[in-house]
């Protein structure tokens, strides 16, 4: 019963976002153009590092492009479905208008997480698919159907992790007032998800696999699509993501317990 109610609620929130988004059709066009441009710019460092050179950690330029594809896709999810809602939470905490959300008869985390979607970010997904097509044409083969299914499942896992990390960042907003620099920090770290995490060695490899799971977000789905991911790694990734989500939920609960309405 509650599940149906939350699904209906999600539908309503999506419809409102779509209606709002239709007001800004120019933004859609501009954003699409910029996404394509940034995808090109983002590939430059990889091109310099890998194209026409010996592979690094087993990654050639074409294979690394698959990672870039997942990065672009996930960036679209981040900017379209995760970021917009959660950024507005910070403002509401500062101004005290989070009260209105907390008063509503539904889970607060659900409400703040679905408050706003920017549907034109779907362009990112289209660009990502374009990158995949290019990469696999250059590799001269098509991915196996099972690999596609596994990589899509890992994409769901990656989204869960990304969302959980964001919930953790937002929870910090209950303690510190300004988050500009925290979100900037997160974005600059996330930018390195463009690179296969297995290029890194030593300390950085461990950091980006276990502490800030960039490997899980883009490298594993890419390896799955290329058909080189060990099933054990995929299972562990799923388990790790669920643990991460539980942790984020617990921290959010604690944080919201500390909330004392600002202003009048």
């Amino acid at each position, binding site marked *: 019963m509650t599940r149906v109610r939350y699904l209906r609620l999600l539908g309503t929130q999506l419809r409102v976002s779509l209606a709002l988004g239709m007001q800004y059709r120019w933004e859609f066009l501009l954003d699409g153009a910029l996404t394509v441009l940034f995808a090109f710019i983002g590939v*430059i460092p990889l091109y*310099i*590092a890998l194209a026409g*050179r010996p592979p690094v950690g087993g990654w050639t330029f074409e294979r690394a492009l698959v990672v870039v594809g997942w990065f672009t896709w996930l960036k679209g999810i981040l900017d379209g479905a995760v970021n917009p809602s959660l950024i507005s939470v910070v403002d509401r905490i500062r101004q005290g208008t989070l009260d209105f959300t907390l008063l509503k008869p539904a889970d607060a985390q659900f409400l703040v997480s679905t408050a706003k979607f920017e549907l034109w970010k779907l362009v990112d997904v289209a660009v990502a698919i374009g990158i995949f097509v290019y990469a696999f044409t250059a590799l001269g083969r098509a991915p196996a159907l099972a690999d596609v299914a596994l990589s899509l499942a890992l994409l769901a896992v990656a989204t869960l992790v990304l969302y959980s990390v964001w919930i953790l960042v937002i929870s910090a907003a209950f303690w510190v007032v*300004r988050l500009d*620099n925290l979100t900037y920090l997160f974005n*600059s*770290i996330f930018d390195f998800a463009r690179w296969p995490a297995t*290029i890194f*060695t030593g300390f950085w490899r461990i950091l980006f696999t276990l502490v800030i799971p960039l490997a899980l977000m883009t490298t594993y789905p890419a390896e799955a699509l290329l058909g080189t991911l060990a099933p054990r790694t995929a299972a562990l990734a799923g388990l790790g993501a669920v643990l991460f989500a539980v942790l984020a939920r617990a921290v959010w609960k604690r944080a919201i317990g500390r909330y004392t309405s600002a202003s009048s």
Partner: protein
Amino acid sequence: MSAFSRALQAYPTLLRVGFAGALAYRAELLIWMLTTTMPLVSLALWTAVAESAPIGRFGAAEFTAYFMAALIVRQLTGSWLVWEMNMDIRSGSLSQRLLKPIHPLFVYSAENLAAIPLRALLCVPIAALALAAAGGERFQAAPAPLAIFAAALLGAWLLNFFTMALIGSLAFVMESSTAVFQLYLAGFMIFAGYLVPIELFPPALREIAAVLPFRYTLAFPVEVLIGLSGPRAALRDLAVQWAYAAATAATALWAWRAGVRRFAAFGG
């Protein structure tokens, strides 16, 4: 002119106030410092890439020198004025700044400069250690390059600060100028030599990077510091950098003046 000299007189006090403010918001400053340590990640990445074969004239030692210098330059010249201004303009707290008999940009600049000693506290030891490990012979200790580097550093700070002021002033007419800032950052990331030394770009992109102002905020001082550019080229670049800085400063001041006229303090 008297307003200017009055501001200069007040500057030491403003710096002291800014330093106290930076000390008070230590957590924020720490996050801030972490954001500017991204060259360390780039360093790890590129040394791993260069292990199999050097790229151009960049081997592991050159990459270390480059990114350490980038870390130092970024720490000493960075500015987040855009966020500061966005918040002040939107919340109306700008009116308090406008009440003071000193141009608000002066006060902002003092706050920015005063935080630099604290930032240097973190980055200089890290950079010094990494450089010692990589072999410091690339650094030019001769007085002439050092003088050029100092001038380039100041020019980079001015260019950065006034670009931020210019983008921040857009908040007077737009709801928030952070979207424009994101765009600027994306350009900066690639064309300032923050992620890759510009020298390694494909030729067409290198030409674009040479024309755009981004490289004068980071790559140029870095190249001078680690001796990648000769004295003649460095002097020419320095002239271009200061010309860019002057033009940006003039535009920012104009935009500020035009914007303040539209400003109707909300709340307060």
